């Protein structure tokens, strides 16, 4: 039969030589290998204290973005929900009332915006679909939770803090998010 690759190695069926049947020399060889591993560098990252740096293209938890004046970008157009292959996004739109101009950028906003992190596959298509630059994938991942409900992230979890009245929280969120 034609081999698919040239890497196939024929198994030797020859009876073992006396040295091989002694088995002890090979054990010693193996022990030398394990002993040499004592001096190898450990690749372990001590997790809660040290964290592995994510690559700049890492797609983690979502953030809902605000504009320069701290108003929500999202207009609840639903394009992200349509683009989402995992159907993880649900939203309800609402109309901006007079006097709420400092909260929402346009006349329509998302009253409810939920992402089910158990459904989400972190593909980033919502980010690409959004015409208003309202949703971004940050560099953190969803922490563990005790209930399934806890993985449904609402607006209060997703919305980035307002730069103008909560600068510290905003900086912290930005530190994890590449907005």
């Amino acid at each position, binding site marked *: 039969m034609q081999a698919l690759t040239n890497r196939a190695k024929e198994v030797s069926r020859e009876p073992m030589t006396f040295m091989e049947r002694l088995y002890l020399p090979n054990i010693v060889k*193996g022990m030398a290998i*394990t*002993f040499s*591993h*004592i001096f190898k560098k*450990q690749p*372990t990252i001590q997790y809660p204290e040290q964290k592995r740096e994510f690559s700049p293209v890492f797609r983690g938890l979502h953030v809902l973005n605000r504009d320069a004046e701290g108003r929500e970008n999202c207009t609840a157009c639903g394009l992200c929900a349509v683009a989402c292959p995992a159907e993880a996004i649900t939203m309800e739109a609402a109309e901006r009332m007079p006097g709420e101009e400092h909260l929402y950028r346009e006349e329509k906003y998302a009253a409810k915006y939920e992402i089910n992190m158990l459904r989400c596959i972190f593909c980033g298509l919502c980010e690409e679909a959004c015409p208003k630059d309202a949703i971004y994938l940050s560099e953190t991942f969803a922490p563990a939770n005790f209930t399934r409900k806890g993985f449904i992230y609402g607006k209060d979890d997703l919305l980035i803090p307002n730069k103008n009245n909560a600068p510290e929280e905003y900086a912290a969120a930005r530190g994890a998010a590449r907005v």
Partner: protein
Amino acid sequence: MTLLALDWILMLEKLILIAIIVFASLGIALYTTFSERKVAAVLQDRPGPNRAGPMGLLQPLADGLKLIMKEEIIPNSASKGLFILGPAMAMTAALMTCAVIPWSSSVELFGRKIDLQIADINIGILYVFGVVSMGVYGIMIGGWASNNKFSLMAALRGASQAISYELAMGVALIAVLMISGSLSLKTIVDQQMAPGAWWNIVYQPLGFILFFICAMAECNRTPFDLPEAENELNMGYHQEYSSMKLGFYLFAEYVNMIMSSAVMASLYFGGYDVPFLDESTLAPNIAAIIGVLSLLTKIVIFLFLFMWIRWTIPRFRYDQLMNLGWKSLIPLALVNMLATGAVILWQQG
């Protein structure tokens, strides 16, 4: 002070010595479990347990606490008395061995000469073998009393393995006894300590290798840990055990390791002898302390060797295990014994 024809101070002295040695061996065993995990980790490029206390040093206490807090399950169909007797016996047999091991020469305290050996009986090494064989009962009783076919089969595996390897071990030992001419461990050590005398390993390299392999099999250590093959043979004789009863079984293995290391050190590596040092020129108390440290160092080296082997090679298949025991080790041990006997006869002329 002699009352009822008994030397009560001697009794007290021995009781204290027993307490010290038993608790010291338990403490060392406790930390052997920790170092087992550390050695495994280091050999596999991992840091190992490092969360409980500084460098993870409190890990064994956490492990023990966990085992004690676990639910104590005795299966309905188990034979209750025997189910409890199993781990107790394994542990007792493991600890009883320490009675005849000479931990060091004697110290002088309060004007008394105290031997650092619980009992220097003239059949010391036979006693060790007898007690170690009792450990098999712990395995058998535990496996049988669980009323679980897998436990029972594992117990049978364990028992037949222990019996097979004990034979080769005993024959390898006879060669040492022919050289020393005594069954007392103290005498054997003293002979190796005498100025100008070599350790028995020089005369018995093959015997030592055989003894070491058999000791590994006796302690159910990898590559001979078939009785408790965790992954492929459904745990082992302690499958139905939980909580501290399981802990006793696991712990007995480590105590056994320490004791067999001590026996091997005494038989082949001069016991508490420090090489190239004439202990008789030192003050007795200092010599005793150096002796204890020396024996402990040898034990630690053996323990590391046990662990090193465990984390290097996989376990044998059962037929390979039996073939190795009956077709290789026993004939080799017999040849070793006959050769030793022939050389001794030739030297005597």
